[in-house]
C-alpha cells in the first residue's frame, strides 16, 4: 500500500502515524508538505493529529485552507482513501469533506486517556478487520473532540451506516452526540476519527487494538 502523510506546521503526530503505517503495511508513507499543491500517486492520504496552525481561530480551520487541500479534495473525489485522525478529522470537517463540526470537549479540558470504541459499522474499508460488534481499546488526546451535527445530518449519518466508531461502555470523553467517535463520507472512502489508533499498535503501547484500522485499509486496497 502506498500512502502519504500531510504535514502542516503544528502537526505533531505525523511521526506516530508514519511509524504505524510502516509497521502495519511494511512501507513507509511519503511525507507531503502543506504548501505543496500535488500529492504523489498513493492509495491512502492521511491527515495526522496535532495542532495545525496552533488550532488558532478554530481547530483545523486554517489547515483546511492550505494549498495541499485542493489536491486532497481531488484525490478524495477520485475515490482515493483519506484518513483524518484527531486534528486530521477536524481539518476534514473544516474542509467540508466530512459533515458536522468538532467543538470544545464538554468538560472543557484537554483529555488524554484510553477509551473503548465499538465498531458501529464493520463493513467499511477502515473497519473490516475488526468484525461486527467488536469493542476495542483506543487512546484519545484532544481538546476539541465534541462531535456536533444538526439533526438532519445526524439522521443521514446514522441511517446510511456512516458512523464508523462510537465511544462504548460510557467512555465518551468529550460529549459527542450519539457517542460518535468517527464518521465516513457518503462513499465510505473518507474516514475522520478523534481517537488515535496509531498510538496502540505494539506491545510497548500496551496493546495492538489500533492495528485493525490499518490492516483493514491494507487488505481492502490489496483486494
Amino acid at each position, binding site marked *: 500500500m502506498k500512502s502519504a502523510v500531510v504535514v502542516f506546521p503544528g502537526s505533531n503526530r505525523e511521526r506516530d502515524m508514519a511509524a504505524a503505517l510502516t509497521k502495519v503495511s511494511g512501507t513507509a508513507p511519503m511525507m507531503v508538505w502543506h504548501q505543496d499543491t500535488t500529492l504523489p500517486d498513493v492509495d491512502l492520504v492521511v491527515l495526522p493529529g496535532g495542532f495545525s496552525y*496552533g488550532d488558532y481561530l478554530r481547530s483545523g480551520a486554517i489547515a483546511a485552507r492550505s494549498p495541499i487541500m485542493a489536491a486532497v479534495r481531488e484525490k478524495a473525489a477520485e475515490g482515493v482513501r483519506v484518513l483524518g485522525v484527531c486534528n486530521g478529522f477536524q481539518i476534514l470537517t473544516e474542509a467540508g469533506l466530512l459533515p458536522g463540526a468538532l467543538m470544545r470537549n464538554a468538560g472543557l479540558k*484537554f483529555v488524554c486517556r484510553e477509551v473503548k470504541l465499538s465498531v458501529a459499522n464493520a463493513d467499511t474499508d477502515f473497519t473490516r478487520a475488526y468484525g461486527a460488534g467488536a469493542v476495542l481499546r483506543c487512546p484519545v*488526546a484532544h481538546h476539541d473532540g465534541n462531535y456536533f451535527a444538526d439533526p438532519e445530518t445526524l439522521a443521514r449519518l446514522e441511517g446510511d451506516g456512516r458512523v464508523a466508531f462510537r465511544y462504548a461502555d460510557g467512555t465518551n470523553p468529550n460529549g459527542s452526540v450519539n457517542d460518535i467517535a468517527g464518521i465516513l463520507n457518503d462513499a465510505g472512502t473518507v474516514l475522520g476519527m478523534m481517537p488515535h489508533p496509531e498510538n496502540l499498535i505494539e506491545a510497548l503501547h500496551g496493546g495492538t487494538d489500533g492495528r485493525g484500522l490499518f490492516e483493514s485499509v491494507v487488505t481492502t486496497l490489496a483486494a
Partner: protein
Amino acid sequence: MLRNDIEITPDLVRSHGLKPDEYQRILDLIGREPTLTELGIFSAMWNEHCSYKSSKRWLRTLPTTGPKVVIGPGENAGVVDIGDGQVAVFKMESHNHPSYIEPYQGAATGVGGILRDVFTMGARPIAAMNALRFGAPDHPKTRHLVSGVVAGVGGYGNAFGVPTVGGEVNFHTRYDGNCLVNAFALGLANRDGIFLSEAKGVGLPVVYLGAKTGRDGVGGATMASAEFDDTIEEKRPTVQVGDPFTEKRLLEACLELMASGAVIAIQDMGAAGLTCSAVEMGAKGDLGIELDLDKVPVREERMTAYEMMLSESQERMLMVLEPAKEAEAKAIFAKWELDFAVVGVTTDDLRFRIRHQGEVVADLPIKDLGDQAPEYDRPWTVPPRPAPLHAADVPGPADVAAALLSMIGSPDMASRRWVFEQYDSLVQGNTAQIPGGDSGIVRVDGTTKGLAVSADVTPRYCEADPFEGGKQAVAECWRNLTAVGADPIAATDNLNFGNPEKPEIMGQFVMAIKGIGEACRALDFPIVSGNVSLYNETHGRGILPTPAIAGVGLLPEIDKRASIAFKTAGDAVLLVGG
C-alpha cells in the same frame, strides 16, 4: 562618548534591583555613569536569576561529573551519554512568580522555556515533567491557580507535541502566596550533534531567529522609568504570552538549520532575552558582540533600546552563523514562516556594543558583565532541628481502615489522574509508561533502549531537616528510577527557597545542597543542570524549602521494565529495603 539623557538617580538604581554597593561596582568597572540602557543590562545580568549571586558558591559543591557526563552545568541543559553515539539532554527550570501572576501563561511559558533550553542544544524533546506546589486546597486562590497552571502546562506541551510522562503535585498552606511551577524537559541528540552557546570567529554574523520582539516582560522596570519617557502610553502588562505553535516551528526550523551546518553557536533568549543571550555567547567565546537594534524584528512601534534589550518575548533565539550558509539558513526560516535577521556581528574587542537609530546606546566590557557580577557568601545558620517525635507519643488511630481512607483521599496522596489526563502523554508513539507509575518511560526511537524520568522532593521533610530532606529527595528519585528497572544516570535540580538574605533561609538552602551533594556522591548520581529560585516569600513567610530533583535513568532493554500493578492473584508480595 555615549549620550546620557537620563540621570541615573538612586531611586532608579533601586528600582532596577541593584544595591548601592553593586551600583558602585558598575561605576568602578566602566569609569562613568551608565546610560539607562546600560543600567538595564547590568540589572538583568546581575540579578539573582541570571547571576546566581547568592547560590553560586554552594552550587559549586555539587558533584557534576562522571563517566557518562558529557556536559555538566553551565550550558542550556546537561548532557549525558546513553550509548550508541546518543546523548540525553535535560534540565528543570522554575516559572514560579509568572505563574502566580497569570497561571495559564506563566506555566505555559515555563514549559516553552525549558523545551527551548533543550532544543537549543540540538536535541529533539522526547519527554516532559512538571513539579507543582500550591497553597492549601481551601485557600481562595488555590483553585484558580491549579486550573490555570495545569491547563497552561498542557496547553503548551500538548500543542508542541512532547509527551508529559511524570511530575508532582503538592498542597501546603506555605505556598498560599507563592505557587511553584517547575518544568522539566528531556531531549535526544547524537553525541556529535550537540550545539553550544560559545561564539567562535571574528566578524561573523549574529542572527536573530524566531518570533518578533514586543514589550513583554519589560513592564516592571519600564514603569519605573516611565516618568522619563512619555512614549509609554499605558501601563503595560508584564505578562508574556506563550505561542506553542511558533515554538514547534522554531524547533523544526532549528533542527533543520543545525543539520545544514549553518550554526556556529546558538543560544535561546530566556530571561532578559537579547541581553543575556548575546553576553553569554560573546563572553564564553572571548569575543565582543555588536548589535544593531534597528535590525531586530519588532511587533510594537517605537520600542526603545532599553525595552528591546530587556524584552522577554518568547520563542526567540540568537545564533552565530556560518556566513557561507546564509541563503540556505534563511530559506529554512522562510519555509517555517519565522523571522531571520542578521542583527549584529562578532568582534575581537571584547565589548558589548549596542547601536540604535544611528547612536551607540551601550558600550560595555562583555566579560565583566558576567565575570564581575557580584557573588555573595551570605550568612547562614543551621536551622534548628525539631525535637524527635516518638511513636509512643502519637496516639494510634481508633479505626485503621478509616485512617487509611482519609490518607488515600488526602490532597497530597490522592490519585493525580485529574492532572495528568490533561497532558498528552502518548504523542510521539514511544511512551512505555504514562504518569501513574514510579517513573515515566519513553523509548529511544528506533532502538530498544528506554529512558526513565522521575521528579521528587518531600518539602515537609526538608522543612524538618533540610540536609536529610535534600538527601531523601535524591534517594527517592533514584529509587523511582530503579523501581522501573532503569539505571540512574544523572539528575537536574530545581532549588526553590525563600529569601536568602535571611540566615535561617540561607541555612536551609546550604544544608539542602549539602544533603543533595552527599546523596549524589554516594549514589554516583551527578547533577548536570539545574535552576535556583529564591525569594519565594509573601508577608515575610517563606515557602517550605523545596529542592526538587528530577532524574534520568537508562533501560538498556525497554522490554525489561517493571510496573507497579500487581500481575496475578496468588503472587508473593515482598518488602525490600530498610
